[in-house]
């Protein structure tokens, strides 16, 4: 069959992300070390020192400054990247809001890790979820190949809709685990991702004052033109997010045509065509769910995986379609809205409320602080839900999987 060369590398999720950042021609990287993110930026600093990546690498003194540097560099027209985890993300919280409100096309990897206290460097998704209301697009990756491809797509999406994108992937499970990854060629990335052209730029030849104090109501400028108040700017931000699925799906499709693989846009499924029971999650947990589904299919149970790829904007319409034929959806959250339930579970219920589609929805909390989630745990949970459904008593409180209390 000839000698067609596939650039398959056996690399970690962090290296898959760093390779993508290099390919995207990022001009400014600023980052502060935190486990398990560190090796992403170690790789990038190595590329810059080796001269194989033509970027400014700013070794900042905190995560707060890391995103501060990215915000400023993006404001003067540079393509920028940063990455963080857990407390680092929390430390940059006000900058996370600012980046979104300033409508800057920043791409940040969040290598998902549990929030302290108590300390844990291991994986769950509480960090990203805590930032869900900041106005970013959040995409969760299921494996290292998807990390590599999604970082490339993220720049395209961010620069199309002028909203920052957080590429989320599970710490250690993906960040430090090697898998085969086909690196996209530079030619293909260049064809996919045009040079960044900012829509507003800070420059002395055309002085502007960006993001000053903005009043509640619209106000006239010097020439008498009525300009937006704070609330109008927020409306436009929300509108951009609600319209962003078109850009997210288009980027994934275009990428697919060019590279030969895509990732489902907003949501995806596995063995779900005839599924009566859907097991739903975001990130690498969906891979374990796939193993559980294969095992349950052996037993003749009509079960499938519902993978949530984009968490913000929440794919309300796509999810309604995805669960239309299901009797039951069991949602496995790796985080918790404390005092309520798993955020994905709550959001799914909200999406279904007025849709006329009403499968039973059960919530499970799994894998907090790196607690191992085995496919047999997932099967046990799914079978509990199925039993509740068959007993005619489908209402069920959120249950914690493999909690030993």
């Amino acid at each position, binding site marked *: 069959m000839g000698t067609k060369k596939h650039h398959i590398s056996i690399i970690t999720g962090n290296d898959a992300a760093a390779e993508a950042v290099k390919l995207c021609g990022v*001009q*400014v990287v*600023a980052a502060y070390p935190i486990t398990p993110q560190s090796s992403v930026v170690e790789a990038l600093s190595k590329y810059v020192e080796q001269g194989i990546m033509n*970027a*400014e690498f*700013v*070794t*900042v*003194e*905190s995560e*707060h*400054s890391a995103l*501060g*540097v*990215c*915000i*400023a*560099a*993006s*404001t*003067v*027209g*540079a393509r*920028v990247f940063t990455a963080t985890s857990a407390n680092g993300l929390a430390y940059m919280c*006000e*900058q996370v809001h*600012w980046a979104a409100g300033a409508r800057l096309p920043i791409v940040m990897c969040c290598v998902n890790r549990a929030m302290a206290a108590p300390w844990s460097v291991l994986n769950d998704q509480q960090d990203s979820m805590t930032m869900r209301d900041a106005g970013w697009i959040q995409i969760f990756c299921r494996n290292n190949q998807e990390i590599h491809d999604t970082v490339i797509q993220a720049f395209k999406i961010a620069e199309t809709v002028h909203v920052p994108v957080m590429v989320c992937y599970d710490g250690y499970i993906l960040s430090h685990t090697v898998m085969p990854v086909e690196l996209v060629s530079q030619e293909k990335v260049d064809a996919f991702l045009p040079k960044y052209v900012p829509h507003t730029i*800070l*420059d*002395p030849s*055309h*002085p*502007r*004052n*960006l*993001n*000053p*104090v*903005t*009043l509640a109501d619209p*106000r*006239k*400028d*010097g020439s008498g*033109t009525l*300009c937006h108040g704070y609330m109008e700017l927020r409306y436009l931000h929300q509108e951009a997010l609600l319209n962003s699925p078109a850009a997210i799906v288009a980027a994934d499709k275009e990428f697919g045509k060019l590279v030969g693989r895509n990732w489902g846009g907003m949501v995806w499924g596995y063995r779900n065509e005839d599924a009566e029971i859907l097991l739903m999650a975001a990130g690498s947990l969906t891979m374990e769910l796939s193993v559980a589904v294969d095992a349950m299919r052996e037993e003749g149970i009509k079960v499938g995986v519902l993978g949530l790829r984009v968490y913000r904007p929440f794919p309300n319409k796509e999810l309604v379609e995805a669960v239309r034929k299901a009797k039951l959806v069991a949602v496995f959250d790796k985080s918790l809205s404390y005092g309520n339930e798993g955020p994905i579970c709550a959001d799914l219920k909200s999406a279904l409320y007025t849709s006329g589609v009403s499968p039973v929805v059960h919530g499970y909390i799994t894998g907090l602080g790196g607690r191992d989630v085995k496919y047999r745990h997932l099967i046990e949970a799914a079978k509990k839900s199925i039993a509740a459904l068959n007993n005619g008593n489908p209402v069920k409180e959120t249950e914690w999987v493999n909690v030993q209390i």
Partner: protein
Amino acid sequence: MATKILDLPEEEYMLPGNRACAGCSLGIGFRHILKALGGNCIFTVPASCLTVLGGMYPTSSVKVPWMNVVFPSSAAAASGLVAGLKATGREDITVVAMAGDGGTADIGIQALSGAAERNTNFIYICYDNEAYMNTGTQRSGSTPIGARTTTTPAFGKQQQAKDVPKILEAHGIPYIATSCPSFPTDLYDKVKKAVGIKGTRYMHMCAPCPSGWQFPAKDTVEIGRMAVECGAVVLYEIEDGVFRLTSRSKKLAEQGELQPVREYVSVQGRFKGIEDETIEAMQSWINKRWTECIKRDAENR
């Protein structure tokens, strides 16, 4: 060599009218800073009185590009501007971060220390009105001992002010200067000099505040002069480690006598009810620093 007031450039970068309080010294200082920078610059400003002076969307009181940033982030934002401009081939533009004393001595010091340690190529200007004036005169690390603020309402601040230029000096940066808008040509010359230097340049400008310090708005320039006359503010610069007194402070050193701080204290409402021993503590702090300044200045002559 020193610029005379009539030799200042005519070009104005501050537009007529701004939202600062009546008698605000920041406006005087900022106007001369902008004249010295000459337009080819980008400003980054955190939450501060300067944000208010700059105007509310969609109007602006200045003719320079300006990026507002979160309170602790001035120096990090400047680092981002420097990196972004370098990456996009516009290194000729001077990046200036300008923040108040709270945004510098307190919440912004981590980012400032980081940027200075990296010797980031920018000018940082702290205008020091010696408290959180924009939020209503709360105590800052730069508030002098004895000053009543809304968070030290009865007894006044119990500690001496933090010496921020000294902290910056420990970073080994190429240029540090202090200034006061009551001596506008000294300020102008220092900014002008800073523009020509590469690396982190730190400037600390005393900014008398009529509402916070409680003196009549017409007396701003006079209060600034008194601050220098009594040594509460010393005008100096440190270029590549070489310390020099400048302007009025240099003359005071030559003439030998500072005015007692008691007079300076007595004309400001913020020191009302201050105890004698606090004034003495203030005086001995000033004397100690002044002796050190004279010694350092003499060493380099």
